[in-house]
């Protein structure tokens, strides 16, 4: 995904899930001057957003089509899928890509085995388990060299 913004043009982003990761991303997008809609089923999760967050929040089941239509997802320049449930994220990402024809989608998956499913459908993923394990493996090999 290209998040550089050389022309200071404002883009429209949708973020699914407003937990620790979702709120950081939503705050970052808002701080950069983009339009943001954050969707979460739990109203309290929006407390994670910073005081100067200027985007919109929507309470609802993230994987419902109605909810996505309400968020005007078809107009999004980019979509972040960051709910805590892998299967929900897979379905949201595939719906956004195949049903709403929005190509710029990135999703978080915890289970590295789910990466195959995403790769097949050309959806970008970020896997915290893989990131952490790669970092830790480097730590191991560093120890072995010393």
């Amino acid at each position: 995904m290209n998040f550089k913004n050389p022309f200071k043009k404002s883009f429209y982003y949708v973020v699914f899930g407003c937990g620790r990761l979702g709120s950081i991303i939503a705050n970052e997008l808002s701080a950069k001057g983009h339009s943001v809609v954050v969707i979460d089923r739990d109203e309290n999760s929006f407390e994670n957003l910073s005081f100067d967050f200027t985007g919109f929040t929507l309470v609802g089941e993230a994987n419902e089509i109605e909810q996505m239509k309400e968020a005007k997802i078809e107009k999004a320049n980019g979509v972040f899928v960051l709910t805590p449930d892998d299967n929900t994220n897979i379905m949201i990402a595939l719906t956004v890509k195949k049903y709403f024809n929005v190509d710029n989608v990135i999703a978080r998956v915890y289970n590295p085995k789910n990466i195959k499913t995403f790769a097949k459908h050309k959806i970008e993923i970020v896997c915290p388990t893989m990131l952490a394990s790669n970092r830790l493996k480097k730590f191991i090999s560093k120890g072995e060299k010393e």
Partner: protein
Amino acid sequence: MKVILIGGEEISYHLSRMFLNRGYKVTMVNKKPEYCKYLAKKLKALIINGDGTDNKVLEQLELKNDDVFIALMPRDQDNLVACLAAREIYKIENSISLVNDPENLKVFEKIGIEKTVSPVSIMANAIFASSTVEKYIKSLLSDSSDLEIFEIEISENSKKANKQLKDIEIKEGIIGAIKRNGSTIIAKGDTYILPGDKLIIITKKEMKNSVYNIFVGES
């Protein structure tokens, strides 16, 4: 070929019984340990306790590409992921998914899971279909309409009892059906009218009395 049933309680139990009775090998996967024990006691199927969207569980199923894979979990996203894994990792051609939210039918289709069953759509269609017919009949029978549908019971003494329909001349009306012993017979020319029959007659409002007299008057 074997039948794989992923999740679901009542539906998967009854489907399993049906497939077993027809001689198929059935494997069932369920998240709830207690329900698995119950299934194992009641059915001659292979029961696996686990999450049907977890690749480790799917590996245990020893899936072959001619197996029938049926996803019946309560969350659509789980059914989608299970069917995708079955198709893409295990090359299963025949997978069928339960879809709870009818809006998701379009999503499943776009993603390429073509065989879906939506109980909500089926139920809704049944309800709408019956209410449309009712509305149609009501509009036919409204005050502004000159159509009349009514029922006549044939007594022993009716002059038309034990006669064939083709021998009965009704101007401006037809006998649509006959209710006899709790079932309905679609009326044809060679159908006999028997005492105790109830005739369903369609006619014009102003002709109702004259049609009525044809049947009720004694011979």
